[in-house]
């Protein structure tokens, strides 16, 4: 730390001197990149001096030669060092969010520079900000966006973004103007339009600031996506409002009539939708490109970045919303490029995005701090500044609560009170507002400096103060709820039971999952987009993987059951150290596609929320480890409570958001989900097995006497039963149904009719006993088994010496010929 300050002070102190020098020699205004210069003045003198002397200079000091890139590089270095220092002190960052610390650091730096220079040479230049610092942050967020969550809550997000921002802007502008009229601000030369303009630029919630602060505070994923989505999408509104009011201000109040206003409204739609569409187009371009880049894996990441950046610039060029464009570019391409690119490319893209985004964010915050130390903008107007702060705060709260009240009438999962509080408190303004403020036209807007000053103060207030107090506020609210009465163990347990119950009933009654539009979109997507945008080999390998998985499940389940029979007892099932490693089998069987798939599985696993697990192949291996934790016997009350609290599974609503600027780690919620899944499948298999064995499981009531128990049917039912059981095992793992049509309900398992005819010999002698025949079996007329081949599924490996496989070969071919019949019933869906 000492070293760092030393280097820094050395560097900055000398910069002033050199800059003055440099400034004289470069009469044109300072170029874009913020600069910080280098070694000592003396060298410069020497450099200049030596070139004046005759003869060959051995060494020359060519500052101008390298000025721009050097300065850029140095700033990046400084920002990086700052972050290093900050990260080293976690106990500080727990209290004060990193962004606040960086701003403070910026203050210090700015002070030093100003002290040396007497003028602020470095500012957050809007061009640099908007073209070089912001795009990568937004691209990163778009790329890592949890799509399902985002689109699932799109309605709410849009309401907050559009209506909320308009409300913020209008109310702020009008109130300030009202106060101005009332004389609270003294003598200011600002008209109504300018107030509205100011309102529009400061109304927008800032994505950079939001992420920075919310990383500290762990909120549930819905809340996070609402605030975050809002901060991204409100750019569309901000851009339009800002441009519209800017144009109005230039035109002058007299020329505004209905036509202009209508034009303004239309431009909103054009800007917003145009920007999004443009982003989608670029996203598709990227996906298409990655489809054909097998030979040049090394430049795949480059395409992603370049095209993303181009989408941003193209939108800027067409005066559409660039943030929306790059967001949707990232959102639309993530699935396809993750599938198409080699795993190394995917990692590269992810890492590099994070590096860029992190770096940009750091630099932005540091410069936000530095920009403050500039006497030019130190224009103080108590009324204006204080009123702005006050109104922003109040109107945000009003806006959020009102909109939420409306939304809750239509939402499936209402937004709770505490969430609303966090949302209103978390409406942080950031660098975008500042950037827009510096873009104001001075000639039209006399009080630009005041506005810049106010904007900066608002940014500091929200980021620093609200950032610091956010976490304690959340804790206080949550604790307040819980501290009303100390919960008993059973209350705690029951509360969790309720949560899980609700989630289950929601799923059963199709409240969340069963969505007509979403189903239709999924079908469309499966049919067209994946076909066009994903590499053929990837699609095939996904198919292969699921087929194999399916087969493995079937095969394993059967060998499981067979094993149990051989041993003649249920002991085998109870033996929890039974170990079926799918991963290993995968590697052997599907080796061609393997590296991609495992990467795909593990990456997607960590990137997606648990709800979207269904769409990806989880790396489930049916490991059934028994963890023998011989913990100390807890007998104290507190410990028991604590224990229970620690170990209860979280319900779906409580899973933390997975988006994080700096962390990649796999969320441990996944382990939870895996455990539950394994357990459920194990139980289902168990109950099936016990039903088969004729042993009724102790707590399950099985009176099947009403069903038909013919011997022949019994066997068929039995195989049906296995298939449906196993089919159920596979269902969560099948992202899309196997089959040419590809439009089916993913929850439906393909009909395995052809296999019904085959009955494994080891089952043939067995008395089916009180087996409950499945639905399907009841409906269909029983067939006489003509071929007593194995019920084992398709061959797993071409190279297998297994007699199973060889016996299966003809059967497999037979199966391949018959396409699985999609159920016509699904056509009736909704």
């Amino acid at each position, binding site marked *: 730390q000492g070293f760092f300050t030393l280097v820094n002070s050395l560097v900055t102190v000398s910069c002033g001197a050199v800059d003055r020098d440099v400034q004289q020699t470069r009469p044109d205004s300072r170029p874009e990149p913020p600069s910080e210069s280098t070694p000592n003045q003396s060298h410069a003198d020497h450099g200049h001096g030596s070139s004046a002397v005759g003869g060959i200079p051995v060494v020359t000091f060519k500052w101008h030669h390298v000025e721009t890139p050097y300065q850029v590089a140095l700033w990046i270095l400084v920002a990086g060092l700052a972050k290093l220092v900050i990260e080293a002190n976690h106990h500080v960052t727990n209290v004060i969010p990193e962004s606040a610390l960086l701003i403070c650091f910026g203050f210090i730096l700015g002070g030093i520079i100003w002290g040396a220079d007497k003028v602020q040479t470095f500012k957050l230049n809007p061009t640099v900000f908007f073209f070089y610092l912001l795009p990568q942050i937004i691209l990163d967020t778009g790329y890592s966006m949890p799509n399902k969550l985002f689109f699932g809550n799109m309605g709410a997000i849009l309401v907050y973004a559009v209506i909320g921002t308009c409300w913020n802007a209008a109310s702020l502008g009008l109130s300030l103007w009202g106060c101005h009229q009332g004389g609270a601000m003294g003598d200011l030369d600002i008209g109504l339009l300018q107030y509205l303009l100011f309102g529009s630029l400061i109304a927008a919630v800032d994505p950079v600031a939001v992420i920075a602060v919310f990383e500290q505070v762990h909120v549930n994923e819905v809340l996070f996506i609402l605030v975050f989505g809002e901060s991204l999408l409100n750019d569309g509104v901000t851009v339009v409002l800002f441009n519209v009011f800017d144009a109005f201000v230039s035109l002058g109040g007299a020329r505004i009539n209905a036509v202009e206003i209508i034009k303004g409204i239309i431009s909103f739609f054009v800007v917003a939708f145009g920007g999004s569409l443009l982003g989608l187009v670029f996203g598709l371009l990227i996906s298409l490109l990655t489809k054909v880049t097998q030979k040049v894996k090394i430049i795949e990441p480059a395409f992603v970045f370049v095209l993303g950046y181009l989408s941003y610039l193209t939108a800027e060029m067409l005066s559409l919303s660039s943030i929306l464009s790059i967001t949707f570019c990232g959102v639309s391409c993530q699935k396809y490029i993750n599938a198409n690119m080699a795993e190394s490319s995917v990692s590269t893209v992810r890492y590099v995005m994070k590096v860029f985004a992190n770096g940009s964010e750091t630099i932005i915050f540091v410069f936000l701090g530095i920009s403050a130390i500039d006497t030019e903008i130190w224009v103080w107007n108590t009324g204006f500044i204080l009123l702005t702060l006050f109104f922003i705060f109040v109107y945000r709260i009003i806006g959020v609560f009102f909109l939420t009240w409306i939304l809750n009438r239509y939402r*499936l999962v209402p937004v709770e009170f505490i969430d609303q509080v966090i949302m209103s408190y978390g409406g942080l303004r950031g660098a975008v507002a500042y950037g827009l403020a510096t873009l104001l036209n001075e000639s039209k807007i006399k009080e630009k400096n005041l506005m810049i000053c106010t904007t900066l103060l608002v940014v500091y207030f929200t980021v620093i103060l609200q950032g610091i107090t956010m976490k304690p506020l959340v804790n206080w609210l949550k604790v307040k709820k819980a501290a009303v*009465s100390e919960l*008993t*163990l*059973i*209350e705690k*347990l*029951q509360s*969790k*039971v*309720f949560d*899980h*119950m*609700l*989630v*289950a009933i929601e*799923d*059963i*009654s*199709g*409240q969340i999952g*069963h969505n007509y539009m979403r189903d239709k979109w999924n079908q469309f997507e499966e049919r067209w987009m994946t076909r066009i945008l994903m590499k053929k080999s990837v699609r095939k390998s996904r198919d292969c993987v699921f087929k194999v998985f399916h087969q493995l499940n079937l095969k394993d389940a059967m060998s499981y059951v067979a094993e149990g029979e051989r041993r003649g007892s249920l002991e085998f099932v109870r033996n929890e150290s039974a170990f079926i490693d799918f991963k290993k089998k995968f590697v052997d069987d599907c080796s061609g596609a393997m590296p991609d798939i495992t990467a795909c599985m593990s990456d997607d696993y960590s990137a997606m929320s*648990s709800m979207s*697990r*269904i769409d990806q192949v989880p790396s489930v291996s049916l490991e059934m480890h028994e*963890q023998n*934790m*011989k*913990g100390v016997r807890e007998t104290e009350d507190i410990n*028991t409570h604590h*224990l229970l609290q620690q*170990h*209860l*599974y979280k319900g*779906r609503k409580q899973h933390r958001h997975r988006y994080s600027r700096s962390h990649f780690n796999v969320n441990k919620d996944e382990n939870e*989900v895996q*455990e*539950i*899944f394994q357990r*459920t*499948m194990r139980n*289902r298999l168990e109950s099936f097995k016990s039903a088969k064995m004729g042993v009724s499981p102790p*707590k*399950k*009531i099985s009176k*099947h006497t009403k*069903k038909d128990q013919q011997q022949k049917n019994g066997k068929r039912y039995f195989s049906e039963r296995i298939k449906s059981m196993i089919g*159920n095992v596979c269902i*969560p793992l099948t992202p899309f149904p196997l089959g040419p049509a590809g439009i089916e*309900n*993913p929850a*439906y398992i393909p009909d395995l009719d052809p296999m019904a005819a085959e009955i494994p010999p080891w089952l043939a002698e067995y008395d089916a006993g009180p087996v*409950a025949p499945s*639905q399907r079996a*009841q*409906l269909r007329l029983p067939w006489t088994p003509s071929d007593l081949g194995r019920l084992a599924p398709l061959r797993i490996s071409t190279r297998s010496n297994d007699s199973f496989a060889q016996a299966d070969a003809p059967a497999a071919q037979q199966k391949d010929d018959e396409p699985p019949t999609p*159920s016509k*019933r699904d056509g*009736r869906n*909704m």
Partner: protein
Amino acid sequence: MGSKASTLLREEEIEEIKKETGFSHSQITRLYSRFTSLDKGENGTLSREDFQRIPELAINPLGDRIINAFFPEGEDQVNFRGFMRILAHFRPIEDNEKKSVAVSEPLNSRTNKLLFAFRLYDLDRDDKISREELLQVLRMMVGVNISDDQLGSIADRTIQEADTNGDNSISFNEFIKVLEKVDVEQKMSIRFLH
């Protein structure tokens, strides 16, 4: 194709269900279409497999138990009436209902909600949650990192807290009593879309 139940819900049926469960007309039709989409066998009833086909239930710790709750004692099929009857437990209690003194208690009353929750534990329907039953539920709800001993002590402690008559099990009344401070109405309600 076997006996296919009529796919159209008759008006009288809707009225009956409305009276019994309190759902609105549109809610019932909506839930009916959900019911039919789950019913792969197209015979107007759902089996356990139909429920198990819902992927999210496999990753819900109480998934199978809740599926079980739909099936009446000993039955393997549940028809639409039964389906709605269970779902009715989760209907939010409206204010006007709170005030009305119905002859028979509506399905979504607090007591009935608690009864549903109680039955999740009490599988053998002896109106008591024994230590064993509690342990089973606990086992389902916690991760694998907790040993059986610890779980056992949690179960013991839990019973201790709730048990007032000393029979080492929790009866329904004790269950109600211990949860009296909990806002069951809110925690066990879903908004069913219109």
